[in-house]
């Protein structure tokens, strides 16, 4: 089963829920894979002791122009939708950071003057936590804009190479746009994490709209449940959205988090809140 952990608003506790849920499932003897898909700011690894096994360098293909073959006809420039390849007089120059790697310029060139070279966009690392949770992390290079490409690469690698797990947990980036869609579109179930504040509710509504558009089964986990007002609870009730668990706003939990602590280890009393998710999703 594939579970994506997402939220409209950032900082609501996706990482907390993902890491603790992975820990709980492992404790119950399931084979668990946790993939940190928040590739712009991945943090799941902070909460585990990980023995890293492998690094993969995902890339996109960008054009390289052979000046001896290029006649300066400008067909590549006309074809490119991103202004990433520009012909001026006899010269053709490439702007790698504007290139989306679609390959059209190579196809459009009548002189066969363009070949494609690899441009690394980040890193995919994998290993095992001390609890033997299979762990993956994607990390986007600073200055790169191809967040979605990196997530596609990460999930494709997992699909092709990691077939023997009971649970696949995907910790998604925040928001409701393309990187989030990429992370959630192949999940069987989506766990939305939010908080009962006006910001939390506003962003949850957008996330719910997104998931309904994708036609996915989902539920909500309410973090910092003791702050804010009743609007979130009323909304979930009115919309018939299942609340799978909640954690109170607590300085102790926040402090433990700040040091990279897992709630299930530091505060066993909250185990029952995670067990509710567990009973909902177990095979």
């Amino acid at each position, binding site marked *: 089963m594939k579970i994506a952990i997402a939220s409209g608003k*950032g900082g609501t506790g996706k990482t907390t829920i993902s890491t603790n849920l992975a820990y709980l499932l492992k404790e119950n003897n399931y084979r668990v894979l946790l993939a940190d898909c928040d590739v712009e700011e991945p*943090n799941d690894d902070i909460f585990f002791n990980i023995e890293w096994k492998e690094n993969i360098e995902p890339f996109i293909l960008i054009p390289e122009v052979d000046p001896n073959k290029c006649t300066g006809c400008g067909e590549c420039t006309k074809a490119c939708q991103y202004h990433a390849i520009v012909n001026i007089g006899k010269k053709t120059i490439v702007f790698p950071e504007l290139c989306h790697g679609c390959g059209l310029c190579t196809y459009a060139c009548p002189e066969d003057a363009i070949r494609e070279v690899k441009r690394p966009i980040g890193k995919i690392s994998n290993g095992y936590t001390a609890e033997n949770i299979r762990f993956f992390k994607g990390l986007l290079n600073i200055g790169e804009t191809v967040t979605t490409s990196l997530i596609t690469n990460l999930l494709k690698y997992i699909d092709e190479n990691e077939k023997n797990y009971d649970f696949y947990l995907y910790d998604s980036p925040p928001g409701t*746009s393309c990187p989030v869609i990429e992370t959630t579109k192949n999940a069987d179930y989506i766990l939305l994490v939010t908080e009962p504040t006006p*910001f939390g509710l506003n962003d949850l509504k957008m996330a719910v*709209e997104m998931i309904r558009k994708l036609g996915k089964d989902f539920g909500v986990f309410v973090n910092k449940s003791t702050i804010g007002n009743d609007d979130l609870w009323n909304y979930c009730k009115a919309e018939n959205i299942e609340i799978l668990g909640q954690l109170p706003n607590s300085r102790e939990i926040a402090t433990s988090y700040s040091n990279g602590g897992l709630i299930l280890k530091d505060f066993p009393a909250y185990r029952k809140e995670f067990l509710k998710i567990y009973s909902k999703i177990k095979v």
Partner: protein
Amino acid sequence: MKEIVVLSGKGGTGKTSLTASFAILEKGNIVVADCDVDAADLHLLLTPKINETHDFSGGKKAFIQKDKCISCGKCIEACRFDAISDDYVVDPIGCEGCKFCVYVCPVGAIDFNKNISGQYFLSDSRVGPMVHAKLGVAEENSGKLVTYIKAKGENITRQNNKDYFLVDASPGVGCAIIASITGADIAVIVTEPTLSGLHDFERVLKLTKQFRIKSLLIINKYDLNLKMATSIENFAKSNGVKVIGKIPYDDDFYESQVEGKAAVEYSDKLKSMINVIWEKVKENL
């Protein structure tokens, strides 16, 4: 005109509450843009009255006309984004708008049209002009929308002779953030004293450095973990980043949000603290 962008690698650090507070403190002399278009919340505090609504197109997308398509498979083969299904339907979310399929289609069956992916608004808020947007759910191109509303905001700031243009950016380090910081005079980074906060600050600082934008740091909830706050402070200092404020953990941030107020309107203690921070932002311009 000076352009100030408030950002945080990590979400939930109090960035939007602080942005709203800065705007309230500079009321009348400021134009505000909510560039966190993926999860826009600033309007909940600044209550803008919308004057103009415009459609936004993130770019063109391919569309296959069923009646002309001969199912030859060339488009599927050409598309590197796996955006065309086996029954020849383009997934608008997967489509990058590269036009490769249009080039290879032997019968001209593929249209390439503008796709409306959101709306942006020109408004009057409690503090003055405000530019904000709503990206259609499950749409892409937030970077382009950010660039768009920023350009609008810059023009409004100039036309109205305001001194400050304040930008609330999204979390992360990707395309939306890059669009948010491009052209800014200063970046105010908000973080929290957690391992994640430190890690995300390091990454976002790398980005502002790469774009040569002077950065300042605010540590919110600093007393949650004093040791971590010190580590972050030291890291900032060794990278030439001034720490212009340390705000203690305060539930009033949540309470003020529930009341629809900026933190400075809700708590005198927060007001005096944030006022000092805002003055420091201006001094560093």
